[in-house]
């Protein structure tokens, strides 16, 4: 437990020393969202109709973009190898890294998402559903993305590859996340969707750390 806390502290400290890492996914999120009115149509009725899907897709891409770097700098300076041979639990380390990634990407995205929702004329009753669905759904994205990042960390051209590996796995989260917002915007019950998102989160929280640490061991030894 102590180790988990100190690992989280270290990761957060690293992030705050390079503040661009926080800003970049958020800026990317905003820019992707802006492309849709420019590319398709600025009509408010159209925008409010596609808002749930567009916001969720933009959030998903922003998560994917930042997840590539989750292990990279530690791999490149060799500290990842030291962490693997140390006696501390690898699972705790992995959890700390994923949690920090989520705090920097998913959590911040959930906080600024009402801004994009307003630009997309999402009905006001959908705001709560949007924030809560992002808060419950994006940790799964971080966990799944970390599997892909761990598998590709030793490869030089990891960038495109990681999206090929991870995007198909993101589909259920996208479906249920966008579904929550759609239901919320229409004033329907959202508990069922949230329960499904939470179930996927619990499942991936149980299984993904094992896959991530196994993948890290393979990558470091290769």
């Amino acid at each position, binding site marked *: 437990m102590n180790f988990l806390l100190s690992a989280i502290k270290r990761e957060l400290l690293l992030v705050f020393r390079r503040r661009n890492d926080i800003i970049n996914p958020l800026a990317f999120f905003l820019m992707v969202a802006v492309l849709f009115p420019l590319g398709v149509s600025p009509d408010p009725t159209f925008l409010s109709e596609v808002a749930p899907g567009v916001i969720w897709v933009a959030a998903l891409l922003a998560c994917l973009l930042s997840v590539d770097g989750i292990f990279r700098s530690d791999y490149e300076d060799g500290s990842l190898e030291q962490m693997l041979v140390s006696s501390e639990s690898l699972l705790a380390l992995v959890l700390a890294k994923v949690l920090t990634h989520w705090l920097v990407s998913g959590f911040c995205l959930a906080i600024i998402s009402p801004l994009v929702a307003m630009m997309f004329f999402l009905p006001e009753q959908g705001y709560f559903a949007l924030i809560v669905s992002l808060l419950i759904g994006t940790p799964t994205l971080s966990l799944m993305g970390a599997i892909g990042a761990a598998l590709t960390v030793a490869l030089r051209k990891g960038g495109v590859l990681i999206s*090929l590996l991870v995007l198909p*796995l993101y*589909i*259920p989260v996208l479906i249920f996340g966008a579904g929550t917002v759609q239901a919320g915007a229409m004033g329907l019950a959202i508990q069922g969707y949230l329960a499904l998102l939470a179930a996927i989160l619990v499942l991936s929280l149980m299984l993904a750390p094992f896959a991530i640490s196994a993948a890290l061991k*393979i990558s470091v030894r290769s």
Partner: protein
Amino acid sequence: MKIKMPRWFYQLASPKWFYDITGMLLPWFGLAAILLLLVGSIWGLVFAPADYQQGNSFRIIYIHVPSSILAQSCYMMMAIAGAVGLIWKMKIAHVVAGACAPIGASIAVMSLATGAVWGKPTWGAWWVWDARLTAMLVLLFLYIGVIALNSAFENKASSDKATAILSLVGLVNIPIIKYSVEWWNTLHQPATFTVTEKPAMPPEMWIPLLVMVLGFYCFFAVVLMIRARIEVLEREKRSDWVKKVIENYGR
């Protein structure tokens, strides 16, 4: 905890034994595949009665359904072979898993293509966002990911293990993806395409279908064995028995 597996299971780990045994099995599976596919397609395309609603266009079922079934079981086989390779550190299992990926991807493409050809006369469109079509497309994406990862590593041992982990992660996700896509479909799409609900088929229609499914499985076994044998030769090229195989080739 130690689980004792039968003797043949451990023998499979020997590349030479694998090469010999598949060499013996290959002609039989090849013969069975040719016979079953020939009988099944002629029976299905010529002698089976036409559908009362779709006429003769339904006959593509004899290609479409076997390829869809096979595409899914091929992924299962790949993931299980990968797990066997991880657990028992068996190189042959990784070879088999690696050979499954391109076969499965091409069969998934075939399933999607025949589905599109079938969809045009029945639904009036090459592609609809039907749950089963979408799930098959996602399966194809999973295959593409596995193939891409497999070819990205320079070191064979790490590429084997990484691919095995990815296919296991995909295997856990397949049911979740399937149900989420189905639910998404029922939410977004009014039930326009009830044509997919097959009427109970008479035996003269489903027996050739069964023959075709068996034929596809035999064909899969043949292609899998050929690919795995070549890969084994490639990997074991420094060993004596491979040199002997190559020297005796064509004598």
